[in-house]
């Protein structure tokens, strides 16, 4: 092993100096993607879980089908369909929008299942107490049930969010210039793999605080039990 070769291939600092603006652009695109997808997926997930918990059969069957569908389809396949398929259907949506749509539906299915478990963990008396004061089912859900449900499944929600953020790198396949995509583009510019190392470091710096937060949350949940 020639250390010089390894250094040139993976730790070529001069390459990064050359291309870091592109990497930052990619990082910013990833941030924008997450800022769109995480709140959208979470909100849609809350809505799915809420509708589900109302046990209206006519709504639940299509809902269960949709959730199963989006959980069974690999996100990459879904992504290809939305990015190349939606324009074919005459909806001229930009790549960013198509990616957001794909990840929103995919992640909402997972968020929805987690939040549903959270809702089911709340004692029946909470809904009854809220309803007895005249709150509608939806109001009770929003003000009484969901805040507690989300708190009860916070560790799972955080894990899912981490997974989602990492999964956005799949968008590089459909040429959305997010972090991984820009890593691969700049790799081609400098003829070495250093930008990919930089990409990994950026992901690490971005997600590390969340991983920490997650384990703290989990510890707090365990001790309060």
């Amino acid at each position: 092993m020639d250390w010089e070769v390894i250094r040139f291939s993976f730790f070529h600092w001069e390459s990064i100096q050359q291309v870091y603006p592109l990497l930052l652009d990619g990082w910013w695109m990833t941030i924008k993607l997450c800022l769109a997808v995480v709140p959208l997926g979470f909100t849609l997930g809350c809505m799915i879980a809420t509708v589900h918990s109302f046990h209206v059969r006519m709504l639940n069957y299509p809902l269960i089908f949709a959730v199963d569908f989006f959980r069974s389809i690999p996100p990459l396949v879904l992504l290809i369909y939305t990015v190349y398929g939606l324009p074919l259907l005459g909806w001229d949506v930009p790549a960013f929008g198509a990616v957001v749509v794909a990840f929103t539906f995919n992640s909402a299915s997972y968020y929805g299942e987690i939040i549903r478990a959270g809702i089911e963990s709340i004692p029946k008396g909470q809904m009854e107490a809220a309803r007895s004061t005249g709150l509608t089912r939806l109001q009770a859900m929003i003000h009484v049930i969901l805040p507690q449900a989300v708190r009860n499944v916070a560790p799972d929600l955080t894990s899912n969010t981490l997974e989602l953020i990492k999964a956005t790198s799949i968008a590089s396949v459909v040429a959305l210039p997010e972090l991984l995509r820009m890593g691969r583009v700049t790799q081609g510019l400098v003829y070495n793999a250093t930008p990919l190392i930089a990409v990994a470091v950026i992901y690490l710096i971005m997600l590390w605080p969340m991983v920490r937060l997650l384990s703290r949350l989990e510890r707090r949940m365990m001790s309060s039990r």
Partner: protein
Amino acid sequence: MSDTDTGRATGRRDPVVEALDIHKSFGDLEVLKGVSLTVDPQELVFIIGPSGSGKSTMLRCCNLLEQPTSGIVRITGEEITAKGVDINLVRQRIGMVFQSFNLYPHMSAIGNVTLALRRVQKMDAAAAEAKAHEALSKVGLDHKAQSYPSELSGGQQQRVAIARAIAMEPEVVLFDEPTSALDPELVGSVLEVMRDLRESGMTMVVVSHEMRFAEQAADRVIFMDGGVIVEEGTPQQVFRDTQHERTRSFLARVTDH
């Protein structure tokens, strides 16, 4: 079921609660087999009976937390079991206190009380808080307004739950075994609050095993067993001049321990 008791002759005003021939089944199990209940303004009606007698179900039919299989419920003359009635509107006029308190654990005491004032009665924040402080004062817990349920004793939690119910200024409050989940030494404070409420003229329907309290405070005692009303009358009539054997054996069992 032709011998349905349509309640006592009513006074000048409509009864606050009027439930007629209520039947309720869960699957094959018939829990209520034609129960009628009339509660006049300012009356305190006590419902006693063994577990499984249907007394809690009967109470929960009064604000339609349980939908009766058949029968009519009227609140101050308005038929709430009729089609097209906005039950959320009606429930503002019927407070309910639960065995397990059911306070919202993620909200402070005052948050628990103001939620429905804000969201149902659409009060602004200041008015709702003033109202909530007033209700918390009535149960002697205004100094705990900022405390969370987990920081309160069982008795205090139940008093906050009572404040939550009375802050809406209901026409009747339903109590579903309000002291059953409490340690014995905490029961007194809750009964004290209920006595104050009664003296302030609140109409109340209480499902409970607190026989002493029933004897002292109730206007009328109803003994239920097997989904029907077995015996009904003043505390004196039910506890002292007991007419039915089932009532007698129940009373013997509960006053034993």
